[in-house]
């Protein structure tokens, strides 16, 4: 479904150029859920944004559903295949647009017909129900907003969903609801996920395989059993797992 090969992403120009991602390669099979973990600044979100076409200063190859992507230009077919959900549901929805406006605009942009019926179905899909259709973001809780953002991403009927820390702004109880929803949607629609998170337990719950990143490079790609069993290949991954277990009094 997705292949990333020798990906480099940089910002700025020489001499201030920052190489945010260096020589990253991985592939994600159709229907798989793949995690990207690492500390802030490790380049995990940058990879996601490069795939989504939000950054155009990259080199290497990104192939989505068999189609290699150009650095600058993405066609309509691409956005019908790939959609993204962002970290902060408070920032990713327009405060003056109702749920109806958000979803109908997206549907129209995707050239969909029968918009009325589709909005109803999208809201049902994400567990909000049609009663939420004419609400504004300030009338929604954080979890409900993230459901709207997921509905917006699903509007295009994508096959690959890019999830950038989709639950890190939410309470743990709401996080459980959203993670369950994402798992259900993946099963129902046969979606492929690439999920960025700093929370190893969330990735361990959601993903089949994951890449561990440090300083712009992929340190290790492993399957989730190795993460759960604490049997990674690299020292850095071991440290990351140990640190995520919580605090040990010195």
């Amino acid at each position, binding site marked *: 479904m997705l292949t990333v090969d020798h990906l480099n992403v940089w910002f700025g120009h020489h001499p201030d150029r920052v190489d945010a991602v260096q020589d990253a390669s991985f592939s994600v099979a159709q229907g798989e859920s793949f995690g990207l973990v690492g500390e802030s600044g490790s380049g995990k979100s940058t990879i996601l944004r490069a795939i989504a076409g939000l950054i155009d200063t990259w080199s290497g190859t990104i192939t989505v559903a068999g189609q290699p992507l150009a650095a600058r230009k993405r066609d309509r077919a691409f956005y019908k295949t790939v959609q993204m959900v962002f970290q902060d549901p408070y920032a990713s929805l327009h405060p003056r647009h109702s749920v109806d406006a958000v979803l109908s605009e997206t549907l129209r942009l995707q050239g969909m017909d029968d918009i009325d019926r589709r909005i109803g179905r999208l809201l049902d899909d994400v567990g909000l129900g049609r009663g939420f259709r004419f609400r504004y973001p300030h009338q929604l809780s954080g979890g409900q907003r993230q459901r709207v953002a997921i509905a917006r991403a699903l509007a295009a009927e994508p096959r690959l969903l890019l999830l950038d820390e989709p639950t890190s702004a939410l309470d*743990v*109880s709401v996080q*459980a609801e959203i993670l369950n929803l994402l798992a259900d949607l993946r099963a129902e629609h046969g979606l492929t996920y690439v999920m960025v998170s700093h929370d190893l337990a969330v990735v361990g719950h959601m993903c089949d395989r994951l890449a561990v990143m440090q300083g712009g490079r992929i340190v290790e790609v492993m399957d989730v059993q190795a993460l759960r069993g604490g049997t990674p290949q690299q020292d850095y991954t071991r440290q990351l797992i140990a640190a*995520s277990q919580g*605090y040990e009094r010195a």
Partner: protein
Amino acid sequence: MTLLSVQNLRVTFPTRQGAFEAVRGVSFDLGRERLGVVGESGSGKSMTGRAILGLVRPPGRVTADRMELEGQSILNLPERRMRKIRGRRISMVMQDPKFSLNPVMTIGDQIVEAYRLHAGGNRTAARQKALDMLAAVQIRDPERVMGAYPHEVSGGMGQRIMIAMMLAPDPEILIADEPTSALDVSVRTEVLNIMDRLVRDRGMGLIFISHDLNLVAQFCDRVLIMYAGRIVETLAARDLHQARHPYTQGLLNSLPRLDAPVDRLPVLERQDAWRDGGMISQSLETEFPGGL
């Protein structure tokens, strides 16, 4: 020994639909200990911290039967007297250093200003104190950091700088509101170690507000669990995983765990009874008067 004693604390905001109580009768004693306060957003945990420091702005109202700092009432003091307590005797570290540091002032100037405001003294002495504080929070190159602006340091360093600034006047109580939520796990450990040392070495009282149950269980001595503005359960932190209140259990169960994979995460079923039900493990208050 009890540093801070709070009895029946209430914070009320008038709204068009009538008065809204964000904190509804919170009582606890703080000793020289690490006291964790956990709950979801909107549970009133941050508002409790702000009320203690007198940071609830009108039209919000704070009432309590008692709010005493070492036997002295600090409830609704006039602003001028509160300013002598705030920062000097009770300090606060907020979640995100990006919003707490002044972006157009060097870090050194900010620490020196904060310190001189509370402790007085000349600039040279204050500067030395600032350097010492930066070293105390494990900043390797304090001279360089003193001259840097907030955007030139990382988030973890910014948070340690905040802690240095708050601790320079040697407060008796530190209220830390999600001090590590914006930090990476590796930096988090360092910041916690610093606060841990301050509690042990200086006998400071720490109120640690967090939504991270596992962290609180490991770091704190005692935990208060808040729901809808009230404390629903209080227990020793090491016993958090044996919590008896269904709300606390629900929160713990909703966390994904690496060592216990499940297909579906249990979702918290909220019950109306939690809003006004009695507190569980009330006995702890007499068992550990003023903390552990």
